[in-house]
């Protein structure tokens, strides 16, 4: 069967499953729609959380990023997993005990303030749209690369599928489709990884393979990789180039940001009880770790494969470089998509792939007749082309397409849901129409989910500059605005509304301002960016991606100082804080 037909079949079959689940798990009440009726099993919720969490970027881009960053790529690995420890120990069980529907609702009640709730809704909507636009774009890209349809059509199909199960099923539908999507994506990710590990080292477990000896040689895999890349002027794979403080801050911002992202927190509202919320975070991280522990192995092995495909012999010998006419089939396939670009600078008909930014090495290679790096590699190719590079059967390639779409759709649905519930529950019921009936609120939730899907699709098709800055924006802002006030609201009964609002606004304005200062996303008409985005200009050498960690500290300090200077919160709030600390409901005794 032709690859394209096979891909259509596999992707189509996965869609049928999602739609089937949506029809089976329609939401009947607002409780179903917002929190799946609060009776999801902890293992099931762990799996749904893992799919909710792992986005198109985790599935398609992360291994490639690590492949080309080496050690520095660790910020994503630690940053996007470590936050679950914070969630399990500091946030999820307490917010589950609070027992309401949304994150802004907690902030509003804990701080007795509609203003605080509205500020939280604004942060949430901004963070979630930044994030969801990237997912919709991811769906479009997978469609266009594997099925050769225009991005716009891929987007519309993706929007249609999410529409069916998010609008019909709400959180209940999203939860059960996410479980199916997790299974699709983890299978699609692991199968090629096992094959590539077997080919290189003879060991089928990728996590062990990249620490073992290369097949047919007597050298450890990572040593060999270091050797191969340094011979071409690249920095050593296992050592870092970023400043230590920057690595520290980016990791911290990603971890804390994860623990402050509303679409992740809200997943823990769906389990039956407090102890399930703790346990469920463990399952979630276990399911996430299956992919996150595989990604660095895939990245490093694919980097070696790719480099050795081009540099077939000794560096400097003319015959040591692959002749362009003899390039393998997968090379041709991915050239057509623009992910691989070859430009024969020295006109010798062979491909030279090396680090031409390394001045010393560039001097050395001029004697070989090389005149610059001739191959541009898009990091996404590491995952997308992996099965072809490893020579795997076609059904595996079709599976990668289904997996990428599953990763993007599951994350998109989770985000769209928190957007719609913050509109229907926090803004409509909480602020503008407190007396709205449950049926009308449910309808409002569905309508706002539908509108949010439309906006997300539009942002995915015409991505504004901020969409590419998910790491800096979504995580930085979640870390700097939401996380500190949630944490302080749980662990301190002294923090009041003045402190919380001042803290949130400080974290938000500082972090947003810093990112705008160097990246210029919304204010180009006012002359932004106001400074070149290079390490020499950064505050203490901290990049915009890591600045959320500083914003978080400012938020904490301001919230605590302002609260001390203003009157303590009411007795009801102190009771609320006491109430969420203990799993058992003492009020009912």
């Amino acid at each position: 069967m032709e690859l394209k037909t096979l891909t259509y079949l596999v992707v189509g079959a996965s869609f049928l499953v999602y739609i089937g689940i949506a029809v089976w798990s329609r939401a009947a009440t607002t409780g179903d729609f917002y929190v799946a009726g609060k009776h999801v099993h902890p293992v099931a919720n762990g799996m749904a959380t893992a799919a909710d969490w792992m986005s198109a970027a985790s599935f398609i881009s992360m291994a490639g990023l690590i492949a080309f960053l080496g050690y520095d790529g660790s910020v994503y690995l630690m940053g996007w997993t470590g936050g679950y420890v914070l969630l399990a120990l500091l946030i999820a069980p307490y917010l589950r005990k609070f027992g309401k529907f949304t994150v802004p609702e907690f902030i509003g009640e804990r701080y007795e303030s509609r203003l605080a709730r509205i500020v939280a809704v604004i942060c949430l909507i901004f963070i979630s749209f930044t994030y969801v636009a990237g997912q919709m774009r991811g769906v479009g890209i997978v469609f266009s690369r594997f099925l050769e349809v225009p991005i716009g059509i891929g987007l519309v199909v993706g929007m249609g599928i999410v529409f069916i199960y998010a609008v019909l099923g709400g959180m209940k539908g999203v939860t059960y489709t996410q479980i199916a999507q997790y299974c699709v994506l983890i299978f699609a990710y692991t199968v090629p990884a096992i094959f590539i590990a077997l080919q290189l080292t003879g060991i089928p477990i990728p996590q062990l393979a990249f620490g073992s000896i290369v097949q047919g040689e007597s050298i450890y895999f990572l040593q060999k990789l270091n050797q191969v890349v340094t011979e071409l002027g690249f920095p050593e794979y296992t050592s870092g180039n970023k400043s230590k403080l920057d690595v520290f801050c980016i990791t911290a911002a990603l971890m804390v940001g994860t623990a402050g992202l509303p679409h992740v927190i809200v997943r823990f509202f769906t389990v039956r009880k407090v102890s399930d919320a703790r346990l469920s975070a463990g399952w979630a991280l276990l399911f996430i770790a299956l992919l996150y522990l595989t990604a660095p192995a895939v990245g490093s092995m694919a980097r070696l494969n790719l480099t050795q495909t081009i540099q077939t012999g000794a560096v400097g010998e003319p015959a040591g470089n692959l002749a362009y006419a003899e390039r393998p089939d997968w090379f041709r396939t991915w050239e057509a998509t623009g992910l691989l670009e070859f430009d024969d600078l020295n006109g010798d008909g062979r491909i030279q792939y090396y680090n031409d930014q390394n001045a010393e090495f560039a001097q050395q290679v001029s004697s070989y007749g090389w005149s610059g790096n001739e191959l541009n590699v898009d990091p996404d190719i590491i995952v997308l082309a992996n099965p072809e590079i490893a020579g795997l059967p076609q059904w595996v390639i079709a599976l990668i397409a289904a997996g990428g779409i599953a990763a993007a759709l599951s994350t998109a649905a989770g985000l769209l849901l928190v957007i719609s519930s913050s509109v229907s529950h926090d803004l409509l019921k909480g602020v503008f129409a407190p007396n709205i009936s449950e049926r009308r609120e449910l309808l409002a939730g569905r309508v706002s989910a539908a509108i949010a899907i439309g906006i997300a699709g539009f942002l995915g098709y015409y991505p504004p500059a901020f969409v590419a800055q998910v790491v800096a924006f979504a995580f930085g802002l979640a870390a700097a605005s939401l996380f500190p006030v949630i944490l302080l609201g749980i662990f301190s009964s002294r923090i009041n509304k003045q402190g919380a609002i001042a803290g949130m606004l400080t974290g938000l304005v500082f972090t947003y301002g810093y990112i705008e200062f160097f990246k210029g996303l919304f204010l180009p008409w006012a002359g932004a960016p106001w400074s070149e985005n290079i390490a020499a200009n950064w505050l203490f050498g901290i990049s915009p991606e890591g600045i959320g960690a500083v914003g978080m500290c400012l938020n904490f300090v301001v919230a605590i100082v302002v609260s001390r200077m203003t009157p303590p919160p009411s007795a009801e709030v102190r009771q609320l804080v006491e109430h969420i600390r203990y799993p058992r409901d003492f009020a009912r005794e």
Partner: protein
Amino acid sequence: MTAQDARTRYWRANLRLVAVCLGIWFTVSFGFGILLVEPLNQIQIFGFDLGFWFAQQGSILCFVVLIFYYAWRMNRLDREHGVDED
């Protein structure tokens, strides 16, 4: 001992447990994976430099174990102090 005392003791025990777990969380990631990565890279375990291994594998494995350990210990604390849900 009143019920209120028991609850206060429960909360203190929880905070102690959280502090220990977060100490380990910080040590394996920010400590071993970032701050101490160069000295640890002098040690080789199989084909891995130890610091690099902690940054890309070990820290994540520790996170998973930590959460399950915390969930297990908290269930016990809940029962011991009479604040469990069932």
